[in-house]
């Protein structure tokens, strides 16, 4: 039981890590490798604010707003001038180096994990074992986000427009859809989501130099396995990776390094467009 719950927690955290990247890639067709660095800076900001103010919620808010604005500035100031994917990737690598150096200068390489609010501390007895309350909260938040995004994309007019832009942006523009606000909102929202995930994840993963590499790798793998630009696909991909990784480590710890890579390879081999992606 505890192992299953761990798998679900890890899956939903992966979903939160990957969904912002998926939306940006799906709508803007921009592959932003600095997404992991957004997580790292968001995590560090949340840790610092929580330590100084004792307010975990404020830390979350500061992380979301700061990274959302950073993402917006990057898109408006740099990415929109580069239509070619390779140029975008190279630019995002440049931002990774800058953000890593900023983190090194600001936080001196320290590791941070903020204390939790009193109602999220402790553990609950589930199936005879203690399970941390905070991980239950991550499950709940992840599910709410997944459901909220699904409703937004599938059941609202805004969602229909977003899906149209993802499917065929030139056609959507030809039909009179003003895509500018959508593009701005996407980058703002995607960045804010990265900051939020960093703030939420740092009591779990820690805030440290190097967590960005882990996050971008996992987010990319989840996005590719699920299918680019697909919310349901990202959720499916994150659940598949999260559960296989958790159970794989528990029963075959000697293959822990290999598990995610093996799964990624298998999916790419049999369905290169991802589980829910369309073949081009």
């Amino acid at each position: 039981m505890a192992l299953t719950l761990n798998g679900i927690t890890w899956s939903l955290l992966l979903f939160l890590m990957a969904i912002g990247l998926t939306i940006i890639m799906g709508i803007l067709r921009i592959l932003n490798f600095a997404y992991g660095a957004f997580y790292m800076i968001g995590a560090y900001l949340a840790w610092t604010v929580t330590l100084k103010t004792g307010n975990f919620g404020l830390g979350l808010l500061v992380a979301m707003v700061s990274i959302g604005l950073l993402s917006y500035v990057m898109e408006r100031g740099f990415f929109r001038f580069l239509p070619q994917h390779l140029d975008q990737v190279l630019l995002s690598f440049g931002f990774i180096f800058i953000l890593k150096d900023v983190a090194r200068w600001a936080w001196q390489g320290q590791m941070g994990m903020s204390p939790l609010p009193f109602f999220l501390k402790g553990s609950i007895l589930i199936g005879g074992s203690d399970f941390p309350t905070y991980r239950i909260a991550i499950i709940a938040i992840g599910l709410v986000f997944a459901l909220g995004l699904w409703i937004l994309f599938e059941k609202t007019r805004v969602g229909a427009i977003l899906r149209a832009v993802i499917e065929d942006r030139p056609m959507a523009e030809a039909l009179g859809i003003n895509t500018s606000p959508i593009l701005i909102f996407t980058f703002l929202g995607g960045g804010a989501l990265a900051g939020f995930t960093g703030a939420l994840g740092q009591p779990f993963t820690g805030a440290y130099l190097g967590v960005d590499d882990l996050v971008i790798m996992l987010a990319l793998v989840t996005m590719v396995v699920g299918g680019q630009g697909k919310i349901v696909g990202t959720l499916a991909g994150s659940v598949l990776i999260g559960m296989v990784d958790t159970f794989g480590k528990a029963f075959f710890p000697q293959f822990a390094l290999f598990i995610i890579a093996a799964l990624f390879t298998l999916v790419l081999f049999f369905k290169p467009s991802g589980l829910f992606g369309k073949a081009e």
Partner: protein
Amino acid sequence: MLHKRGHFGLTWAITLFSLLFLSVILAACTTRTAPAAKPTIKIGVVEPASSPAFVELVKAELNGLKLGFEEADWVVAGRKIELLVEDSEGQPAVALSKAKKLVESDKVQILLGSQNSTEILALIPYVTETKTPTLVAASGTTVQLATKQRSDWYWRISETGPSFPIPEAGYNPKKFGSKGIVVAFDNVWGKEIATVFEYYTKEAGGEIIQKVFVPFNTTDFAPYFAKFDKSANYVYGALFGPPASLIVRQFKEFGLDKQFRLTGGVLLIPEVVNPVIDYAEGLTGSVRYLPALDTNENKKFVQAYTQRFGVGPGLASADAYETAIAIRKALEAIKGDIENRKQDFLNALAQVKFVGPRGPYELDPKYHSYVASGFMFQVQKVNGKNQVVWLKDYPSDKIPISKVTKALGVE
């Protein structure tokens, strides 16, 4: 009597010139020229400064070195000392190219590095070929450096091989019960520690009933916790960097402290335990140094370090500080003539005597390595706050390196 005009001017010019010339000669004879300054001794440092697992450790090492040389105003045997630092980025190939740059372009006479054992293995052939005295100033290294990969030019002032688990291997069965689980990194470092710990646990009448090797970048230990053998009494952690802090926190969050005791000397170093100190009550372990050591030499060191850098020292700081002192004393012993007496310099490192924050300095000339003591520490509640405390009553003898080579079956 009037001279002819031309003769009068020429005479005065000759007279003036002669006087000036004489003045110059006199001045030259009486002025002392300053003696030519002795050239600076350059010490090159190659460390993985930008590698996430080593960022804080390298910073601590550099601070320790600076403090050690500042005490002598950066002058030893009449020669200035200069540190030149290069980032190896955690890559053996980069470490080698930086070492070459330091030795061949910057002309360093001594090389220090690296905290990363794989980088050390890459440097050994080069420093041996070029006969460059090279020291590991901080962090434990693989025992291969004292055996299969031994070089007469690569010495360790930190520690060779995992001697620090040995006191704890004897302590845990007595205090917590005979059955233990080891959780270690799935690399050379982790496996050596697990082997040594298991060997001496058996010698003390205990038993390691499970060994779990985890990847270097592990963030979630929950899958491994789920498979812990419930009959174990304690869990011994051999990890460092962010995963080490994470296991301490997650161990408590999952309520495992009700079932097992978490132990591991390397889990107690400040960089690991400070972010998670609230979760660490009861954490016990043995290691060659921690700031909690209650000796006069260490108190003086901790005070000077904290005043100088605004933060307390850690294990890497103490290693590096004593490395700086040992280098100073060895250079004094050879009167600073490092260029012509390189081998004498290395031999002198084994002969210098002082008492540092880690205790009495002792270097084994056979294994080219510092001989560490093993102090037991524990996180206890002191005045309502968790704090690392030295368990003074437990023996803290020097641990011969032969005990490590015996356990690992190498020589």
